């Protein structure tokens, strides 16, 4: 397969595909043990966590439901005023369900804090957080992370769902974007 034209924008591969998939399998196995005998609902916030959730759900040997949410983001389009809002809410009720929020990356924690409070209001039986990447350098809200894939340094990462300008999500690994691409230092 020819090299992707996206790869010229990658400064380095932080987490390669093999390591990623091994970790996803491990997280799935842990969830399967912790929720044995129960059904779990995986909730992913579009769009970055999609690849992670698709692989994670296939590593879980339990009955699994999946659902998707979309939340507005500060700075998106012209959003520098107003407040965060749900652009797409869950399709199914989660009252009484064991819910796991599946995140691609936790940075400041602001979005996840809002999503968590929103989902708590729907009375799930339990609510846990599973994140592929944890970047605590600028964490503003303490987040209780039940399942953590990797703690990463303060780098701008792309791939495996993470984007810059909606591009690079389809890279199969976690890479560091070249600063020249986004005008960084």
């Amino acid at each position: 397969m020819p090299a992707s034209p996206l790869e010229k924008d990658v400064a380095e591969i932080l987490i390669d595909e093999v390591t990623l998939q091994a970790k996803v399998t491990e997280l799935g196995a842990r969830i399967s043990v912790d929720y044995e005998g129960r059904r779990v609902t995986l909730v992913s916030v579009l769009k970055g966590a999609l690849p992670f959730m698709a692989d994670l759900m296939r590593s879980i040997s339990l009955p699994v439901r999946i659902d998707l949410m979309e939340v507005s983001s500060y700075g998106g389009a012209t959003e520098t005023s107003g407040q965060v809002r749900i652009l797409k809410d869950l399709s199914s009720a989660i009252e009484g369900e064991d819910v796991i929020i599946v995140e691609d990356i936790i940075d400041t924690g602001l979005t996840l804090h809002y999503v968590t409070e929103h989902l708590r209001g729907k009375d799930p039986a339990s609510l846990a957080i599973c994140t592929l990447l944890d970047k605590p350098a600028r964490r503003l809200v303490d987040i209780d992370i039940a399942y953590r894939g990797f703690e990463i340094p303060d780098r701008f990462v792309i791939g495996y769902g993470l984007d810059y300008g909606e591009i690079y999500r389809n890279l199969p690994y976690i890479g560091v974007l070249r600063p020249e691409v986004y005008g960084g230092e």
Partner: protein
Amino acid sequence: MNEDPRFAHASEAELARILDYYKVAWQYEPHVFPIRWNSEGVVVESFAPDFYLPELGLHIELTTLKQSLVRKKNRKLRHLRELYPMVRIKLFYARDFRALLLKYGRLDAAASLIGVDGQPPPRRREAAVVVVGPSGPSGVGEPLESSLPGRGGPAAD
């Protein structure tokens, strides 16, 4: 949440907008922490972190200016943490703020928000503040008095 607190720097206004957007309550410079006293017990230096997030119990200090001022901030922060170990405070440097702007697709605004370009014209600041003494059981410190700059010790920066 304060109304129109007249931020000292554009980066503070931007952070306030981000916090507002994500419905995180904030207060602007509500606490002044004395960090140095003279031999007579008079406060000679204090530190007022830029933001306090009351629901999270977290103070945030933004520093996006030149390196010499960053060194001064670091020293003050070290003193604060030694004197008030229960106070949770996070220091955002220029690189942290720039990373936030990148995260939210606002890097194009960095030039106007970071550094000298983000400073408004000099003004006289007259906001009332609560002066906080050494940490009490709450960890935040017990209010000593309400003071305006010029009374009860030097104004914090």
